């Protein structure tokens, strides 16, 4: 079953065209990676698909809904972790989870979610006092609090130390086991190789390669996904 269908997606900002013509399909229950150099348009794809930005052209369906015209309905069924998004400094972990749960018609039990993600000890901790790893855990928990069918994670592990990163990988696999479809934007090819069922590499506003990590490695005639990435994008330094 196709969960996300993007065809010829175009988007320009004042600074110029970001997405030229992006087409991709995400199937139910997979971890789908979106990789590519800085400024390639990865975040824009996620923001268009989650209803945060209006597209200039192309078609876009998530769970059969148009993120623009059916934004509210779609928001009930997806979860989002945004790059650089934040919570108020003084909000406590428990308060944030409880408040976000109140936005959804059929939320998950936020207390269970808090225990499951190891946040119970931090329940009364203020957002500003959390380290990067704990903040990310909270963001993931907030993305899941609405019991979503699809979760978008935008550079979830950027800025995390290696052990926090590995821990986060386990949590993402966990989501897939529950049947949640995960769209993961990442810079890290080791991460994409370890986690993703399929990956799309975006460069200069287009999908330049798509497939399983194995397929991409073969296509790039390389030994690792990282080498394949450089072979396919044609750049050593982004």
């Amino acid at each position, binding site marked *: 079953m196709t969960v996300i269908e993007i065809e010829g997606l175009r988007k320009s900002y004042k600074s110029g065209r970001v997405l030229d013509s992006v087409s991709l399909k995400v199937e139910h229950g997979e971890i789908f990676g979106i990789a590519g150099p800085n400024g390639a348009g990865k975040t824009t794809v996620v923001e268009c698909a989650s*209803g945060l930005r209006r597209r200039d052209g192309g078609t876009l369906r998530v769970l059969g809904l148009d993120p623009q015209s059916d934004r509210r309905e779609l928001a009930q069924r997806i979860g989002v972790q945004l790059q650089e998004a934040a919570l108020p400094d003084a909000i406590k972990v428990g308060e944030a989870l409880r408040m976000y749960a109140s936005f*959804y018609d059929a939320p998950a039990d936020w207390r269970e979610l808090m225990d499951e993600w190891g946040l119970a000890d931090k329940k009364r901790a203020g957002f500003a006092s959390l380290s990067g790893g704990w903040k990310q855990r909270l963001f993931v928990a907030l993305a899941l609090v609405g019991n979503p069918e699809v979760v978008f994670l935008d550079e979830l592990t950027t800025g995390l130390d290696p052990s926090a990163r590995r821990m986060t990988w386990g949590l993402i696999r966990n989501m897939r086991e529950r049947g949640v479809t995960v769209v993961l934007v990442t810079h890290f090819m080791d991460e994409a190789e370890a986690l993703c069922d399929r990956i799309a590499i975006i460069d200069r506003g287009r999908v330049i390669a798509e497939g399983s990590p194995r397929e991409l490695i073969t296509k790039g005639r390389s030994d690792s996904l990282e080498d394949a990435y450089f072979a396919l994008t044609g750049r050593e330094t982004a």
Partner: protein
Amino acid sequence: MKGITNVTAVELKLIMRDPMSAFFALAFPAIMLWVKMRSGKPLPGGLPAVDATVPMLSVFVIGLAALVILPATLAGYRERRVLKRLRATPASPTMLFSAQWAAHMLLAALGTMLLIVIGLAAYGLTAPANAGNVLLAWILSALSLSSIGLLVGALVPSGRAATVIGLSLFFPMGFLSGAIIPRETMSGSMRAIGDLTPMAPAVQAIRDGWAGDAMSPITLGVMVAISIVAGGVALRAFRW
């Protein structure tokens, strides 16, 4: 309904946890009352100072919450992308704004009650002659001033800028409109300028209600008009 009470409660707690906001809205007006009552001679016309000062300072509290703290909260949330994260949820913008408004007005209500309690306990404040009118005037003052605050919060990019703009609206208005200095002791020209500020009808209406004078329909109408126009523009201009 469950959503809005929850968000309002959380937002009010967040404001109270910020030492600056709590100080400005609660302690500062109480200190102003104390300072003013140390030299509290009856006003020209014989009204005891406290009976003018408490209603005046209640507009001062509303102004701080509505023109300074509310826009700073909204602009700060935009700057830090708190709003963007909220936008990715099904929460309705109307609900989120109403909750923000309610939280800031509850803060102003707490500040007002504190002034009244101190006035009654320490300075022999006379109870309002027409409590219903005072309440109506208070709510319209809160609506009209916070719609202006909402407009600032809708347009200004950062929390710091919003605080600067909020304060530069608040203090001149406060001084000229009679929220800080009683209108009775102001010169005619100052009063004339002050009457042009949106805070003047608020001071007028709350003081009229307190003294038991009839409230002018024009004063109330001006506040309703400001609420609708500034509030409407703010909602249209709002950027996440």
